[in-house]
């Protein structure tokens, strides 16, 4: 240990929310020019701790020291004055504003009469975008971008403030490999400049690539802080979940049955075209591709969320018309969206209602929705999915990101579907839970269901799938059988066309 004073230090931080003690007595410090990684299960309190540093929450107790001086950070504006900026886990973007407006929101350059300097904003935005080789139009509205585009902008924005403490809360959960590389390049650059970075991620490979130090939180309590070289993936996982974990991908051999879903020549003008594939009973099908390859768009079209111009969807050999989501659900097909916030949770409502929403018929008999039954069933499913929540009536908004994802999965489990389309199912999920989800997927196919898994994490696709389709530019560029699975093969197809 050197004697250098930490750039940022937290002492005895405690924080409670209604029904939950999110943090209890956390001590934590970060040195100049280092990357400090925070690990912990979903709901361990990582985001909460970071939000305290950024002034979104006030700690119930404890001190924050910057350069050895105690400070009180009341809001993000003050945080920025102390040189702190943050990339948030939950992308809370403003759909109507444009790329350039978003880049400078809250930090608009003005002339001496208070007039916003649009020219400067434009040139700065273009410069920043070009510097990172990102091709967004500065006047595109955020609502017209995909979630990964927006995440990339958030990263760019946080970095552009010239802060000396940058907090990144799961920045890579929504972006693909190329962009991850851009980000890591940026991190190296910042580190060299003496910026310190607090980095939260559930992706172990990433963590070990960039971390200088790792801190592990469990249930709001700090377990340990160690330099990276004293740890390895298994040790971290053991510290996080409190036990050893062996095989990460619990794949089992399952008998493959007849074709359950067949998609023929699906086309939606210039978003994707001529997409054909099939899924058999008991199969796990992967969809790989770079950002904007069109995978999510295809899934949305099949699920009835978007329209398409041409093509057929056959379920169990019969052509079906899916005009609305409910049609798909009735045909036994469900989809977990990649954008949980927008297409998943009903924020102000409780966990129970969120889970039951798509299959209320189960609790309706004699013309009445029986809440007792609903409660029993939902709590059963939540237990099985290991959802952590103070009660089933707690509004889903206040759950941690990973738990929200589990609630979404619980919603679809309740529908007992034959076909599950999972768009980025493990986004923002901790290793323990990830394993649980993989196990769940395995169980599901064992029960004779079929899975379509869209993921930007190649290892997960390779580890779990029976077949992988690769998309690029809105077209399927190839289909790989299990024995052909390698990162190289996939990337070759993904960059084709």
């Amino acid at each position, binding site marked *: 240990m050197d004697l250098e004073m930490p750039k940022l230090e937290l002492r005895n931080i405690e924080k409670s929310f209604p029904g939950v003690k999110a943090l209890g007595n956390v001590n934590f410090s970060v040195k100049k020019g280092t990357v400090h990684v925070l690990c912990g299960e979903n709901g361990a309190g990582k985001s909460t701790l970071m939000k305290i540093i950024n002034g979104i929450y006030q700690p119930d107790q404890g001190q924050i020291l910057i350069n050895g001086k105690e400070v009180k950070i009341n809001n993000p504006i003050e945080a920025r004055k102390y040189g702190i900026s943050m990339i948030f886990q939950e992308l809370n973007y403003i759909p109507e504003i444009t790329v350039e407006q978003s880049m400078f929101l809250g930090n608009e350059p003005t002339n001496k009469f208070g007039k916003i300097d649009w020219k400067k904003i434009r040139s700065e935005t273009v410069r920043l975008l070009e510097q990172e080789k990102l091709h967004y139009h500065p006047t595109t509205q955020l609502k017209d971008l995909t979630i990964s585009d927006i995440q990339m902008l958030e990263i760019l924005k946080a970095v552009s403030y010239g802060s000396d403490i940058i907090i990144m809360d799961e920045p890579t959960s929504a972006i693909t490999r190329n962009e991850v590389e851009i980000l890591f390049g940026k991190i190296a650059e910042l580190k060299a400049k003496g910026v310190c970075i607090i980095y939260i991620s559930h992706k172990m490979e990433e963590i070990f690539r960039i971390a200088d130090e790792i801190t592990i939180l469990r249930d709001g309590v700090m377990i340990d802080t160690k330099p990276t070289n004293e740890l390895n993936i298994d040790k971290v996982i053991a510290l996080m979940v409190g036990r050893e974990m062996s095989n990460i991908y619990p794949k089992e051999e399952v008998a493959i049955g007849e074709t359950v879903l067949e998609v023929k020549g699906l086309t939606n003008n210039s978003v994707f075209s001529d997409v054909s594939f099939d899924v058999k009973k008991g199969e796990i099908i992967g969809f790989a591709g770079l950002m904007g390859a069109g995978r999510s768009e295809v899934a949305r079209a099949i699920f009835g969320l978007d329209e398409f111009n041409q093509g057929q969807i056959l379920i169990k050999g019969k052509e079906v018309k899916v005009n609305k989501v409910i049609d798909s659900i009735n045909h036994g097909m469900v989809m977990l969206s990649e954008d949980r916030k927008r297409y998943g949770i009903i924020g102000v409502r409780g966990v129970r209602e969120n889970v039951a929403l798509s299959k209320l018929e189960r609790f309706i008999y004699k013309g009445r929705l029986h809440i007792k039954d609903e*409660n*029993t069933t939902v709590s059963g499913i939540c237990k099985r999915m290991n959802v952590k929540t103070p009660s089933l009536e707690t509004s889903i908004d206040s759950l941690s990101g990973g738990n929200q994802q589990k609630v979404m999965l619980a919603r679809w489990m309740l529908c007992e579907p034959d076909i599950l389309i999972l768009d980025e199912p493990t986004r923002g999920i901790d290793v323990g839970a990830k394993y649980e989800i993989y196990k769940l997927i395995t169980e599901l196919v064992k029960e004779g269901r079929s899975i379509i898994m869209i993921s930007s994490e190649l290892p997960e696709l390779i580890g779990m799938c029976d077949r992988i389709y690769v998309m690029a530019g809105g077209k399927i560029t190839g289909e790989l059988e299990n024995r052909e699975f390698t990162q190289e093969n996939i990337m070759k197809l993904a960059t084709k066309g």
Partner: protein
Amino acid sequence: MNSKGVNQWWAKATSKYSIYIVLIAMFIVCSVISPVFLSTKNITNISRQISITTIIAFGETLLIICGLIDLSAGSVLALSGVLSVAAYKMTGSMQIAMVVGVSVGVFCNAINGILVTKFKTPPFIATLAMQTAARGAALLYTDGQNIYQIGEYKALGQNSIGIIPIPVIFMIGTTLMTWYMLNHTKFGRHLYAVGGSEEAARASGVNNNKTKMTAYLINGLFVGVAGVLFMSRVNAGLPNGGIGAEFEAMTSAIIGGTSFSGGIGTAMGTLAGAFIMGFVNNIMNLLGVQSYMQQIVKGIIIALAVVYDIRSKTKRDKKKQGNINEKLVDSSNKAKEPGAL
């Protein structure tokens, strides 16, 4: 339960039911400061006075929960009431009059619903257009004249069953209906879902348009019934009746905790809101507060009631710092809560 448990229970109760506490506090204060307040007669009066607005308020509650609004309630009330009166004068049948009144209410709201769901008109504008048009139609039909001599039509609005006035019975009926819909039907759940997040609801298999349309149709039913009761109570067909009724109705709903951001609201809350407004109006009249002063006081009381409600909710959030071990789901013992009144 130990003393800490009692304390916690109390803190929770006061915050969760803060609007009912406001209501009870107001009730007690009123009883103390005015001797006549607590008479059966006066309470019956208050109930009757708020009944028609409250029936509309349930329609607004459903709509606001779903992220919609109805600015046309007052006008549609007048149109359906006037046509119902006319039907009664023609046929002499109260059944037919009722059917006509309700049909008109439902019809106007079907147009509202179509404008909102099919043509994607903002609900504010769609129902504002209906407000103007329905009022015009009511006036045009009656040529601006009130319809008098409507005979036994008035029975519905003026008679009582036992000591309970018929409009109050309708109010109780719509309360129960709304409560049941919100808590024990798919439609109710879908209302909350659509109001909470349209896109998420759609992606969860909710038919948003159908939900919105149904909300408007039920609102139409309530407004139609309110129209018949209104005309019956004033014993005339008044094309000018019900001006601003939608605002009083919305006020009751909002005071009762319904939120314009959607996804939040209860039937009992709205009823409590309506009674709070009824008490305020009643007590000031009983005390003979000067009428301009009444308006000022009323404004202050509305603000205070809501501020108290909001404050105690926030305080709960601060107080309710539970134990981390409680965090894991605890299943069946709370089964009754959401259904509780």
